[in-house]
């Protein structure tokens, strides 16, 4: 596959990347502060609320840096495989980018002004300043606009190339964006119809459990919106980086379609310990949660088969001999590979969280914080970091010098080491009962709480030490990104660091089924209806009293 040039999409990809890395820097600073405060290593000045910092951390890292990075990557990759944006597409991307950016600046201003210390989940009936919610709404509408441009680009290509297999990258991008579209309807509904009216005083109360159910209808598929682009790097870019071909194109597509179908009807696994939802429905969504593990198992197989196949094609033998043949010295491989390893405990932890009655052991403890740092915080982010080493110079027409590669290896290892330390401590602290989202406290010197400061592993100090390593790694990454964007050597025309696009070893036949979008979207809709209709009717029938808003910070 030869790369196509797409200067307009590239320009927008660069803008998205700029915001993403700015968010990583500020967000990581917040993370460091949180880890240090909880360990008692520092105290915040009276004008700075711990929970404002935590809101910034969650919003900037989980919502902003991920979304902007993903859009940058999808814009660039669609450009390389489908061609540049049409004039119409370009307008939607520009509109979307500015709506998102203005929205997030508005929300950030409210958080920093202390008007929105509601954390990145903004659960009702905490009531933030209306501009915070309006900012969020603008952000979401902006994402719809960018997503529309990219989805449209895919279907235009399909129409112009009847009977051809669509490029794998663009196919996967389209699945990812459909997931985002369908998921974000839930959060949009609660923001537009509950939060904004409440904060403006148009209504005097809201149904809290309804809002939470809408939120989590969005919240779980959101994690697939983060994860699938990282999987795309593993499926589409990594095989090329190691000099091989993807094991199976058709199975890769099928795995993505399974995500499209199964990622929505599972949000209730975040609500297992709350009232208002009957046990049967909690259990039903737990079962579906386990089903959505299957496409991840398929991904693991496909990716590792690709590694082995490539090494064997290069003549490496033995049961494990091929492992040595992988390019361990290449940051473009090492970073995403380490990221994959973290997804092993990440996935297992997810199954524990989702295990129905077992959830009560870990719900809202630091175990959960450990869990999402070894899912989105590393498998996703470290993959994006590793991808930046080719994406940024590719987009800026530069090369990737050897020095930056070496520092990149240092960055990846530091991040992995820091995350290992921090996440082990968080998982262990959580099992000992330490709560998440909680500023420094010893609970009036309660012996249980004091043990969190003194046992070797389940210890806030261990968490903070990991946090310090992580912060160093984050600063190094942002520095490298700035270097690659502005200071790395300019490449001769068409000699910039390539955007690695792999071909597939087994194209397999392409069952027409795989491109039958109507079918897969319908299946997704049917499962959503089955999983949510009765729980929503129940909530309506309970007729829980509407609750007024509170500002408790």
């Amino acid at each position, binding site marked *: 596959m030869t790369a196509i040039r797409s200067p307009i999409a590239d320009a927008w990809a660069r803008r998205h990347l700029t915001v993403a890395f700015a968010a990583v820097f500020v967000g990581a600073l917040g993370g460091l502060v949180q880890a240090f405060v909880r360990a008692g290593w520092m105290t915040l000045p009276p004008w700075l609320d711990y*929970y404002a910092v935590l809101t910034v951390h969650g919003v900037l890292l989980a919502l902003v840096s991920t979304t902007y990075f993903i859009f940058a990557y999808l814009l660039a990759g669609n450009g390389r495989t489908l061609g540049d944006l049409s004039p119409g597409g370009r307008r939607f991307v520009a509109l979307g980018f500015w709506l998102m950016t203005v929205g997030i600046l508005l929300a950030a201003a409210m958080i920093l002004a202390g008007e929105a210390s509601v*954390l990145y989940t903004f*659960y009702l*009936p*905490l009531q933030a300043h209306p501009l915070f919610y309006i900012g969020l709404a603008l952000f979401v509408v902006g994402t719809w606009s960018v997503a529309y441009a990219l989805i449209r680009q895919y279907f235009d290509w399909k129409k112009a190339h009847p009977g051809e297999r669509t490029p794998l990258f663009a196919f996967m991008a389209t699945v990812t964006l459909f997931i985002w579209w369908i998921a974000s309807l839930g959060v949009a509904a609660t923001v537009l119809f509950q939060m904004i009216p409440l904060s403006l005083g148009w209504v005097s109360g809201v149904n*809290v*459990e309804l809002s*939470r159910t809408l939120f989590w209808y969005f919240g779980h598929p959101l994690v697939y919106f983060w994860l699938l682009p990282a999987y795309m790097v593993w499926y589409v870019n990594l095989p090329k980086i190691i000099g091989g071909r993807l*094991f*199976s194109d*058709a*199975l890769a597509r099928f795995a993505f379609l399974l995500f499209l179908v199964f990622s929505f009807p599972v949000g209730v696994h975040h609500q*297992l*310990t*709350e*009232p*208002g939802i*009957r*046990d049967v429905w*909690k*259990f039903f969504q737990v*079962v579906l949660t*386990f089903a959505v*593990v*299957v496409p991840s*198992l*398929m991904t693991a*197989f*496909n990716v590792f*088969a690709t590694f082995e196949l490539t090494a064997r094609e290069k003549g490496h033998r033995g049961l494990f001999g091929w492992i040595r043949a992988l390019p361990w010295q290449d940051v473009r491989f090492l970073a995403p590979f380490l990221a994959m390893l973290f997804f092993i405990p990440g996935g297992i932890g997810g199954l524990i969280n989702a*295990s*129905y*009655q*077992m*959830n*009560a*052991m870990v*719900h*809202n403890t630091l175990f959960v914080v450990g869990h999402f740092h070894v899912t989105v915080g590393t498998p996703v982010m470290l993959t994006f970091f590793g991808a930046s080493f080719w994406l940024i110079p590719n987009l800026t027409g530069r090369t990737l010098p050897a020095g930056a590669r070496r520092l990149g290896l240092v960055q990846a290892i530091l991040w992995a080491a820091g995350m290992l330390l921090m996440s082990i401590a968080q998982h262990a602290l959580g099992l*000992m*009962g330490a*709560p998440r*989202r*909680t*500023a420094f406290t010893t*609970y009036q010197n*309660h012996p*249980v*709480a004091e043990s969190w400061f003194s046992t070797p592993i389940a210890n806030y100090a261990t968490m903070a030490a990991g946090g310090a390593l992580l912060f160093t790694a984050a600063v190094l990454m942002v520095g490298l990104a700035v270097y690659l964007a502005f200071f790395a050597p300019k490449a001769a025309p068409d000699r910039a660091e390539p955007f690695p696009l792999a071909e597939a070893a087994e194209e*397999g036949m392409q069952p027409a089924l795989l491109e039958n979008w109507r079918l897969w979207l319908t299946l997704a809709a049917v499962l959503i209806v089955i999983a949510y209709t009765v729980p929503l009717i*129940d909530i309506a029938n*309970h*007729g*829980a*009293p*509407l*609750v007024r808003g*509170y500002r*408790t*910070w």
Partner: protein
Amino acid sequence: MPVHRYEKWWLTFGIGTLAVFLAVLGLRAFASGHTPPGSVLTVDPELIDTIAPWNAPGVYDRGDRVDVYLVGQAFSYAPNRIEVPVGKPVTFHAVTKDVVHSFTIVGTTVNMMLIPGYANEATYTFKAPGRYLVLCNEYCGVGHQFMQAEVIAQ
């Protein structure tokens, strides 16, 4: 779509494992009655001070079991010293007067969300006497880290 033999084995093993996990969870839930906390009883947070049983929170010994009625609010619990017997099932019934909180007894399986508009409940039998830390693990405002109580099992 050709599927490699090893992939078939891998997926069979994976899906089989998931199915076993689910069977265990399901059996524990629907055969042994070990379900997560939950309730569909609605309660108006504005009326908690005036309606029974919430207007008299406390411990009620019913002979072979115990009911505890609890009210959470930013940033405290009533009662905040809860004395319960060892060896009898204790059902904690809890509500919130304002925002979302949790009622969490560290070192036990009692960990439930208090959602305004609903009551919630969880049952636990204390096996060993002791002083158990109760804390709120859902962010509820500036004083969230001070929201605590104690269960004394004896």
